[in-house]
Structure formats: structure tokens, C-alpha cells
């Protein structure tokens, strides 16, 4: 870039030049005028001298004593340092202060003499060869009875004449110099004064550029510059407002994005991640900063997502799909892809919104299974009852031995039906009461509950020759509803006994672990295969269809346990490995 000169250095020299030029012009004129004045004054003085001298020589002219005239000329000329010449009307020089008149030729043609001989005052400034200098000559006529008989000429060197105002010239030059210096200082100051508001404007503009838009310019200067400053202030205020708006909008957007439950990914045309929100980071277990700018296939390794992104980028408008992210556990995502365009309508990328529908899918499945299961569970006993009743009606009633057996079966199935319905009712009761907050929790010892369970289940255990032991400290207390908790623990112990072989042990223990009260039921039975563990707390979920019915469960026991645990503000968990037994744990808040 070309080196720019400062404004000061553009203004100041021109000021200086103008001042110097005008002073010089004026000085020139003044010098001329002074010189003219000096010449005029000298001419008048010379004329007066000439007139005086004329008086002196008038008599001598008349008496024609030229010799005396010459002497007089020489005397006076020397005393007033002026060349004095007396010329007769014929042009003959009769007296001269400098030269011998006899050796001088005629003066009649000298312009001042010529003038004087015609009875006028002759004033001429010219070069005199005899004096070898510039001289001012004044000649006056000498008249006798109306005729000019001679002329007196006074000559003075111009040098001497204008020598006089020499000191004046010096004073003038000095004065001019002083003025120039003063003017230079003043104009520098003025230029600086003009420059200062501009520097302030520049400083202000720089602060604006740095983003300090709250700064206001206060410039005390000429109207134009003040108006400029005002305009800049207005501009800054508007910019500030705009920036504020943009920032607010961005913050809002940021807040919306980060608080969205849905995962949001913004990708450019090369499938690179431009933005991802927190939900997406959590969903895919990635770090936003690390993933930023990377291709989606690298950052999130999920082929279905990549395929979806490819599809969304290729599609002209909105696309939607359901994708599955494999992992532990698998997640079902509802994916929406919307094209992103810039202001010119060119595609710059795609916005992908992923909605985690795993829970919904699971709930849907549970609901579907529940309906199927409940129908199945109710139908089985009813089919039997129906069958046996029909058999009885068709005549078996008259065969007492079979009729007795059939009725027993019918009673057994009716009991089962009633058990199922009882369990369903108690489930829905617990649910309802929990929703209404009607379940009364009382601080009571956990040991009492365990004792009660041991008492209820003891008989069943001894029938199967299973040792049922319990361990619990007396001090362990929790906010519980004894009846419900007893039911839950009893259900677990019941299951443990059911799935243990005779001779094995079932242990019931309760203690405080990490601020959690845990009630554990441990058995060493057949255990539960891994794939069932997530689902055994669902209603009617059966690990082994044939076996459970035989054991006489309703399929609702664990669901009831789960509901009771959550009614206490706790939860239930299970650890099990196939063939090695299971541990069910009720966690209660301490």
C-alpha cells in the first residue's frame, strides 16, 4: 500500500506556502514603494537645494564670473555630497562640482537640462557615464527677465538616496521572518486543531471495530465533523442493537438446541458435522468438540445413520425414517432430515433431528404383550372349566368318581382365575394408590417384615426341604408400608423356593449399602438366562412357559414387586446367571 501522508502534513505546508508567498509579495511591493518614496523625497530636496543654489549664482551669472560659479559649485557640492552643475542656456557647463567645466562638452541634450532650459523642472533618473553610476538628476531653470539663461542641476547617486531606507528593509525582513515564524506556529496549531477531532473519530471507529459498541464519540469541533461524529454514534447504536438482537437470537437458539430432548445434527454437503447438541452427544456418547468438522461416518459409527444422512443430502426435501442404532441396548430413532439452504437457495447441508423412540417402542411392546398375555392367561383356565363343565353336563355328572375329579379340576382352575384377577386388582390398586399418594409409609423396623415373610413362607420351604434363613440387624429401619413390603418380599421368596431344588438354601437378608436399604433374596436355583433379565418384571412375562404354569404362578408376582418397590420410592433389581441362581434386590431409600 502506498504510504499515506498525515493530514497535518498535507495542510501545514500549504498554509506555510500561502503565508510566505503573500508576505513576499507584500514585501516586494513595500520595498518598491519605499524606494519610490525615497526617490520622490530626494527629488524634492534636490529641487529645493537647486533653487537655493540658483539664488547664490544668479548675480554671478549676470556678472559672468564663471570662475566663481565653478568654485561655489565645488564647495557646495562637496559639503552636501551632491553633484552640482550649472549649465548655460547654450549648453555650456560653467560650473561643476566633480569635473573641470572646461573639459565637459555641451549638456544641452541631457534630458533634465533640456527640460530645465525650457523653463520646467527636470527630474530624471538615469545612468551617468561621467559618474559611472545611477543618478537622480533635478534641474531647475535660472531666469532673468523672463528668459532662461541657465540651468542648475543637482545630481545624487540613487544608491545614496535609497541607502537611507536600508535599515527599514532590514526591519521589514526581520518583521517578515517573525511573522512567518508566528504564522507557522499558528497554522501548525490550526492544522493540529483540525486534525484532533479526526484522530478522535479514528479512535472511536477503531473501538467500534473492536466491538466496543457502547462507546460514544464526544467531539467538540466544527459542524461537519460533529455531524460525522453524530452519524457514527448513530451507526454504533444501531449496530449495537443489531448485534444484541443477533446475540440474543443465537443464545435462544443455543438454549433451545441444548435443551432439546431430540438429538440434533447439522451437517454440510461433505457430511461433516457442523453442530451437534447435547442430546446428540449423549445419544452417541461423543464429545462435541472432537466430533466437530469430522465426517459423520467417522464421528458416529452407525451405518444406518450414515445411510440416512446420504439419503437426506440427496433428497430435494424433507425425509423421514426410522433407524436402529445397535449397541447395548439397541435404540430406535425416528430420524428427520431437512435440507439447509443459504440465502441464495443453494444447498449448504442438512439438519438431522433424531427422536429417541426406544421407550415408546418398548412400552408399545409391553402393552401389546400384556393384552395378549392376559387373554392367554385367562383363556387357559376358562377353556378347561368350560370343557369339564360340558363333559359333566353331557353325563359325566352321573359318574361320581370322575365327576368328583372334574369338579376338583374346575375348582383348581377357578382358584387360579381368581388368583390372577386378585393379583391384577392388587396391581391396579397399588398403581392407583401410588398415583393418588395414598400409600401410607411408616418408619418401622425392616426385620419385622422379614420375620413375617419367613413365617408365611416357612411351611412351603420346609415342604420342599429348603432351608430359609434370614439376616437383618434390629436397628435397620425404613419408611415402609409393612403390608405391601411383606407382600413383595413374600413374592420374591415364593419364587426363590419355587425355582430352587430341594435341599438348597434360600437366604433373605437386609442391610444398608451406600445409603440404600437393600433387601436381598438369594437362591441357588436354576437362574435366569441373560436375555430375560430385562423383561421379567413385565406383567405375564414368562421365562419358561411350560414350567411356570405348572408351578402355579400367575405371572404377575414380579410385576407386583416392582410396583411396590416404586411405591416406596425405590426399585427392584436382579442379578442372575443361568444355572447358578439369582439374587433379587429391593432397594429402598434410607
Amino acid at each position, binding site marked *: 500500500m502506498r504510504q499515506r501522508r498525515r493530514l497535518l502534513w498535507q495542510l501545514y505546508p500549504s498554509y506555510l506556502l500561502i503565508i510566505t508567498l503573500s508576505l513576499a509579495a507584500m514585501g516586494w511591493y513595500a520595498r518598491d514603494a519605499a524606494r519610490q518614496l525615497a526617490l520622490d523625497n530626494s527629488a524634492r530636496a534636490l529641487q529645493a537645494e537647486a533653487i537655493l543654489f540658483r539664488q547664490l549664482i544668479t548675480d554671478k551669472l549676470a556678472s559672468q564670473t564663471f570662475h566663481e560659479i565653478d568654485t561655489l559649485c565645488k564647495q557646495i557640492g562637496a559639503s552636501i555630497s551632491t553633484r552640482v552643475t550649472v549649465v548655460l542656456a547654450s549648453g555650456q557647463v560653467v560650473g561643476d562640482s566633480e569635473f573641470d567645466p572646461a573639459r565637459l562638452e555641451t549638456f544641452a541634450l541631457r534630458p533634465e537640462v533640456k527640460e530645465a532650459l525650457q523653463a520646467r523642472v527636470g527630474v530624471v533618473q538615469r545612468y551617468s557615464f561621467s559618474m559611472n553610476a545611477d543618478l537622480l538628476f533635478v534641474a531647475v531653470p535660472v531666469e532673468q527677465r523672463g528668459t532662461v539663461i541657465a540651468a542648475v542641476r543637482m545630481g545624487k547617486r540613487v544608491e545614496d538616496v535609497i541607502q537611507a531606507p536600508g535599515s527599514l528593509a532590514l526591519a521589514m525582513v526581520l518583521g517578515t521572518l517573525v511573522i512567518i515564524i508566528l504564522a507557522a506556529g499558528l497554522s501548525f496549531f490550526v492544522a493540529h486543531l483540525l486534525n484532533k477531532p479526526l484522530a478522535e473519530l479514528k479512535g472511536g471507529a477503531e473501538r467500534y471495530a473492536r466491538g466496543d459498541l457502547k462507546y460514544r464519540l464526544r467531539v467538540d469541533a466544527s459542524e461537519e465533523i460533529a455531524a460525522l461524529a453524530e452519524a457514527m454514534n448513530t451507526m454504533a447504536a444501531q449496530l449495537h442493537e443489531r448485534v444484541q438482537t443477533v446475540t440474543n437470537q443465537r443464545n435462544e437458539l443455543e438454549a433451545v438446541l441444548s435443551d432439546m430432548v431430540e438429538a440434533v445434527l447439522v451437517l454440510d454437503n461433505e457430511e461433516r458435522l457442523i453442530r451437534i447438541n447435547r442430546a446428540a452427544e449423549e445419544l452417541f456418547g461423543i464429545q462435541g468438540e472432537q466430533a466437530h468438522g469430522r*465426517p459423520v461416518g467417522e464421528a458416529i*459409527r452407525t451405518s444406518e445413520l450414515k445411510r440416512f444422512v446420504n439419503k437426506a443430502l440427496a433428497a430435494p426435501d424433507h425425509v423421514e425414517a426410522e433407524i436402529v442404532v445397535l449397541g447395548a441396548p439397541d435404540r430406535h430413532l425416528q430420524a428427520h432430515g431437512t435440507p439447509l439452504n443459504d440465502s441464495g437457495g443453494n444447498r449448504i447441508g442438512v439438519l438431522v433431528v433424531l427422536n429417541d423412540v426406544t421407550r415408546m417402542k418398548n412400552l408399545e411392546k409391553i402393552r401389546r404383550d400384556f393384552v395378549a398375555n392376559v387373554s392367554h392367561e385367562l383363556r387357559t383356565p376358562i377353556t378347561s372349566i368350560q370343557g369339564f363343565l360340558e363333559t359333566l353336563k353331557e353325563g359325566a355328572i352321573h359318574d361320581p368318581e370322575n365327576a368328583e375329579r372334574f369338579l376338583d379340576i374346575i375348582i383348581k382352575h377357578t382358584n387360579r382365575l381368581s388368583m390372577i384377577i386378585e393379583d391384577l386388582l392388587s396391581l391396579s390398586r397399588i398403581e392407583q394408590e401410588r398415583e393418588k399418594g395414598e400409600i401410607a409409609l411408616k418408619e418401622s423396623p425392616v426385620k419385622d417384615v422379614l420375620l413375617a415373610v419367613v413365617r408365611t413362607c416357612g411351611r412351603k420351604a420346609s415342604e420342599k426341604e429348603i432351608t430359609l434363613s434370614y439376616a437383618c440387624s434390629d436397628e435397620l429401619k425404613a419408611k415402609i408400608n409393612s403390608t405391601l413390603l411383606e407382600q413383595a418380599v413374600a413374592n420374591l421368596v415364593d419364587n426363590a423356593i419355587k425355582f430352587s431344588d430341594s435341599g438348597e438354601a434360600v437366604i433373605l437378608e437386609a442391610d444398608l449399602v451406600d445409603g440404600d436399604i437393600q433387601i436381598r433374596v438369594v437362591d441357588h436355583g436354576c437362574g435366569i*438366562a441373560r*436375555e430375560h433379565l430385562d423383561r421379567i418384571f413385565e406383567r405375564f412375562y414368562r421365562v419358561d412357559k411350560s414350567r411356570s404354569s405348572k408351578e402355579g404362578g400367575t405371572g404377575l408376582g414380579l410385576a407386583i414387586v416392582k410396583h411396590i418397590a416404586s411405591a416406596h420410592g425405590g426399585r427392584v433389581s436382579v442379578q442372575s446367571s443361568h444355572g447358578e441362581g439369582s439374587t433379587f434386590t429391593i432397594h429402598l431409600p434410607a
Partner: protein
Amino acid sequence: MRMRLQRDIDRLKSRIIELGTLVEERLRMAVKAIECRDTGLADQVIEGDIEIDHQEVDIEEDGLKILALHQPVADQLRYIIAIIKMNNDLERIGDLAVNVAERAKMIGEEAGVQMPFDFFTMCQKVQGMLQKSLDALVNMNADLAYDICAEDDDVDMMKNIMQKQFMEKARRDPERLEPLVHLLIVSRHLERIADHTTNIAEDVIYMVTGQIHRHKGARP
């Protein structure tokens, strides 16, 4: 020309990662098929193998094309060679996943097989190794790759323990040998997968450092 080469290499990388992702998912599905006795999932793995095979061929062709067209040198040459080798390993892992899925189908037909071994720890370990090796590839992280090489020994050890357990069980309960045989074979497949994963990790080390790390064990 050089820019085109870089673009081609980037595309190759994106494709190998795509293949890796696919293989990773297939392995996960195959293991899940065994865990949950889900023969439908196993069928998906078996049918999907053709996709992996196609991708492998495409990647190999692309790699060779780049070699022939641009004649790259130094790190770019290393990069492409490593990708071509990895491509092979990934395809083999895909095949092994299919084998695992086939076994899953066979086990699935036998109801109520007990898992006698600590089978799932092994599955998780192998899956983790594959995931890490792809992470190492994506991030060009040699340190991570060294870790994988070290982990391979653990998997070998697991396989040996399983073999011992199997022989013990077989002696005790010769009646129920069949499902155990399937599981033993699966464990062998998993061990092979771990080996291929280690190869991939070694290729990553080669890509990053230029050192051939094979047969050297742990970190230098």
C-alpha cells in the same frame, strides 16, 4: 493433481470406515443372536454378508486405482497399502461374524442350553477391541492401537480357559455335548476375530509411524 490424490484418499478412508462400521454392527448382531437365541437376527447377519463382500471388492479396486493413477509415495503410499490390508481383515471379520451367526442358529434350535463359560465377557472384549481398532483408525491414534495388540493376549487366554472348561464338562456330561461344541467353535471364531482386529491395529501403527509392528507384542 496432488489435491485430487488427497481427495481420493479421503474418500477411500471414508469407505473403509463405512465398511468397518458395518462389520462392527454385524458382529454385534451375531453376538446378540447367540445371547438372545434370536435366529432372525442371525439370518440378517448371514444375508447381509454379501454387502460386506461387495464393499471389500470396491475398496480394493479403489485402492489399486489410486496406486496406479497417482503413484503416491511416503505416507500416502503407506496409508493406501494399510487400508488395502485392513480391508481384507475387515472382510474376514465379517465372514467370521457370519460363522458365529450360523452357530447361533444351531444353538437356537436346542432349547435351554446353559452357558457354561464366561462367554459374554469374551464377546464384549472382542467387540471392544474391534471398536477400539476402528477408533484408532479414525483418529490415527497409534497409542490406542498398541493397547489393542496387548489385549489380544487376554482373548487368547480366555479361549484357552474355555477349552479347558469345555473338556471338563465334556468328561462330566457327555450327553449334552452338542451345544457346547457350538459354543466352543464360536469362541474360536471370536479369537480369530480378535486376531484380525490386532492386524488392523498393527496396520494403524504402520500408517502412523511407518514401523511394521507385527510379531512384536507390546509397545516398543
